[in-house]
């Protein structure tokens, strides 16, 4: 069953149309990735799902229509977005960042348990929990951003180019943790990535978009073997 | 998209302006002269704040320097009025440039605060140097007379000008010259450099723009414009006193450029009309609390035209052009 279903999605910034009718879906419990070059509209797609851009088309989450809903409300429905560039609160401590992640939750009783869980995935955050988030390295900030999203106990996790600016080793580590979270907590993931190689390794299903339209939709494994894709996106 | 026909419109307005003084009497004429004076001052501030992004809450200070320079020259050394104008301008150019140098270290809010402090200090400083400035009482001047050949009954073309009309034309002439000068400067490389510094100083520097030099020079030029306006006002009002040049003047200038439209030459003119006439209208609407009405005007204007009158007109023109071209104009 598709947790998130997007049909005929169009989006624009002011007068400029960026998405020209996208169709894609994220299966419950699955990891879906959207690939494409710079400017293809990947980030806009995530922002559209989150209610941060003006859109038209149908977005259905868990059976109900959410297009036009505000970002703050969507968070309460269980959609967590880790934005491009991390979006950490650099002048707040790691711990405060995490607390804010849980802000939208109704039942805040088990906060301590959530902290423990998150520190288990990312031990380095526990070490640095009193530090200002701005003093963390890029990789640590990315972990903090994902951890913050997890504090929400989301049903759907949106990841916007998590590999940006990070060393490959760090990216591998983060992707490994995302896979663990997906398996153990049944958090569905929609991953937008430029790094096609790593994304296809992680995902179940992949969509290729070019200038605001889906040009290919297939299981990730299939795309990995596809020569044309390899040449176009992986360069060999 | 068709470009806005600036030149024909400007010439048409100029034609109207040339005819006006013969249709208006003393006080109205004086008000229009004052509008032109404000327009020059506002253009000065707009060059600095609108085009170059350096916020100044203290331009009243340069206005005062120009006014007092002119007044002192006319009063003590009998310098002819017209000659005081370039001298005042030059003086303010230097003062502004010198002020621009320490200002390089200050950004946004901090520059605003520094200039605000300057504006507050001006009346005190003027009163302190009594010997030159005449202290709290200021300096009373006599209105400059038109040159002999225009003042006589047998003037050429039968044009006998009153002092008020003469001042109007002088101001108009200075306005045209300074506006054209600014338009040329801002349309070319200089203008682009200024805007580049405003929008992304670091990138501008990286592309080879000498930020420090441009910013200080802009301060100087901006001060010069406002200083010339001040000098003109010394002639038009025929009186200078410290309390006229208080912090409200500087704030009024800021109001003028925001309402008129930042980074717009025409905006300076729109803003000047606003700051000259709207307080009067507010007074007519409510004798008891005129400033409350003025405040309401300010707020409503900002709601309807957040980018000022010039910004609003620009947007309207774009929408009009798009509608004509057939592209559906979207919100």
């Amino acid at each position, binding site marked *: 069953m598709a947790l998130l279903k997007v049909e005929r999605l169009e989006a624009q910034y002011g007068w400029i149309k960026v998405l020209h009718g996208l169709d894609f879906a994220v299966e419950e419990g699955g990891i879906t990735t959207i690939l494409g070059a710079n400017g293809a509209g990947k980030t806009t797609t995530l922002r559209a799902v989150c209610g*941060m851009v003006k859109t038209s088309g149908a977005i259905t989450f868990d059976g109900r229509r959410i297009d036009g809903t505000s*970002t*703050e409300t969507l*968070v309460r429905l269980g959609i*967590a*977005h880790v*934005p491009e560039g991390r*979006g*950490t*609160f*650099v*002048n*707040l401590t790691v711990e*405060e960042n995490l*607390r*804010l*992640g849980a*802000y*939208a939750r109704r039942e805040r009783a088990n906060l301590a348990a959530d902290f423990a869980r998150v520190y288990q995935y990312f031990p380095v955050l526990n070490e640095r929990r009193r530090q200002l988030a701005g003093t963390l390295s890029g990789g640590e900030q990315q972990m903090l951003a994902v951890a*913050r999203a997890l504090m*929400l106990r989301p049903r759907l996790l949106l990841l916007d180019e998590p590999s940006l600016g990070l060393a490959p080793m760090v990216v591998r580590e983060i992707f490994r943790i995302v896979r663990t979270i997906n398996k153990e907590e049944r958090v569905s993931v929609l991953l937008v990535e430029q790094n096609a190689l790593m994304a296809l390794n992680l995902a179940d299903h992949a969509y290729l978009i070019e200038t605001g339209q889906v040009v290919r939709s297939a299981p990730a494994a299939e795309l990995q073997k596809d020569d044309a894709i390899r040449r176009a996106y992986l360069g060999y | 998209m068709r470009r806005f026909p600036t030149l024909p419109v400007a010439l048409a307005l100029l034609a109207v302006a040339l005819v006006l003084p013969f249709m208006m009497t003393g006080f109205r004429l004086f008000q229009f002269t004052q509008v032109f004076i404000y327009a020059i001052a506002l253009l000065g501030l707009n060059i600095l*704040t609108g085009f170059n992004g350096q*916020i100044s809450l203290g331009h009243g200070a340069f206005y005062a320097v120009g006014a007092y320079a002119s007044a002192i020259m006319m009063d003590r050394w009998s310098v002819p009025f017209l000659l005081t104008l370039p001298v005042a301008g030059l003086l303010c150019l230097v003062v502004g440039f010198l002020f621009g140098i*320490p200002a390089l*270290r*200050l*950004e946004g*809010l*901090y520059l*605003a*605060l*520094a200039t*605000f*402090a*300057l504006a*507050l*200090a001006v009346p*005190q400083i003027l009163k302190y140097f009594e010997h030159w400035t005449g202290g709290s009482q200021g300096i009373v001047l006599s209105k400059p007379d038109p040159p002999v050949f225009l003042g006589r009954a047998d003037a050429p073309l039968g044009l006998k000008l009153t002092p008020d009309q003469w001042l109007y034309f002088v101001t108009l002439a200075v306005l045209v010259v300074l506006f054209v000068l600014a338009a040329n400067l801002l349309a070319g490389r200089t203008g682009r450099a200024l805007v580049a510094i405003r929008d992304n100083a*670091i990138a501008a520097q990286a592309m080879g723009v000498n930020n420090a030099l441009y910013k200080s020079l802009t301060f100087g030029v901006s001060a010069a414009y406002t200083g010339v306006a001040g000098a003109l006002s010394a002639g038009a009002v025929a009186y200078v006193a410290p309390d006229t040049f208080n912090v409200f003047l500087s*704030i009024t200038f*800021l*109001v003028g450029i*925001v*309402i008129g439209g*930042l980074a717009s030459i025409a905006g300076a003119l729109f803003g000047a009309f606003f700051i000259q006439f709207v307080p009067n209208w507010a007074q007519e609407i409510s004798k*008891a*609390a*005129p*400033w*409350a009405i*003025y*405040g*309401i*005007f*300010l*707020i409503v204007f*900002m*709601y309807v035209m*957040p*980018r000022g009158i010039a910004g609003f007109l620009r947007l309207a023109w774009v929408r009009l052009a798009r509608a004509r071209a057939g592209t559906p104009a979207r919100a």
Partner: protein
Amino acid sequence: MEILFQQIVSGLATGGIYGSLALALVMIYQATDVVNYAQGEMAMFSTYLAWTMLNAGLPYWLTFFATLAIAFVGGLVIERVIIRPVENAPILTIVIVCIGLLVILNSVAGWIYSYIQKPFPSPFPERPIKIGNVVFGAHDLGAIGVTLVVLAFLYVFFRFTTLGLAMRAAAQNPSSSRLCGIRVGWMLALGWGLAAMVGAVAGMMVAPKVFLDPNMMAGILIYAFASATLGGFTSPGGAVVGGLIVGVFENIVGTYIPFIGTELKLTVALALILIVLVVKPSGLFGRAAVHRV
């Protein structure tokens, strides 16, 4: 020596008032990048409302807290109704709206209450308090106390409550805050409400000393600017400390340097602003803005 202590305490009292108003300015600046030029007039207007209630016979402390509540709601409403339409406009546009608000409040206060100065009562006894050999005004000590209580309340609120954390987050990073489900608009409104409340306290503490009139807060606003500049516009605590320093400094200078009368005291505040800006623009406690390229 006694005079020095007296002047220091008196300076701390006025300094607390400057610092409170400076705090209000910094709170809003941190959230919106805009300096609310109408902060002083909002405080003045709140004080006039208090005066109306006192005149109607209400007891002082009831009036005090009622005024705080009204100021809070007023600040909140002003943000939601008057500032919200321009919240995404260029900064100078918002500045003009604040100036408009300033002018409206000043004018309306003058219209309703006239420009004649009115006395405003202090909740503290008239009799001076003697500590050791030194005599202090009870109002001065009381004002310091009230300021401290208000600041303590705010500190606890922002540091230890979730709502306070959310407000800090919304001020620093609105888009990330939205992603956490924080309604940023309402956080801003709350900020304005709290700032107005702090301003009202400042107004009610200063009115007994300078008499109530529509232009009462104008000079104090300038001292508040000096305080916030000295302490740092990015540091709420710094703004308060800045206020205390300015208050004490102003008093000492006024007492010991004979030719500095009221007019020149203002110039001293201005000189202070300029010196701080030239030497260290971000103030004593502020953080220098770091721009990532």
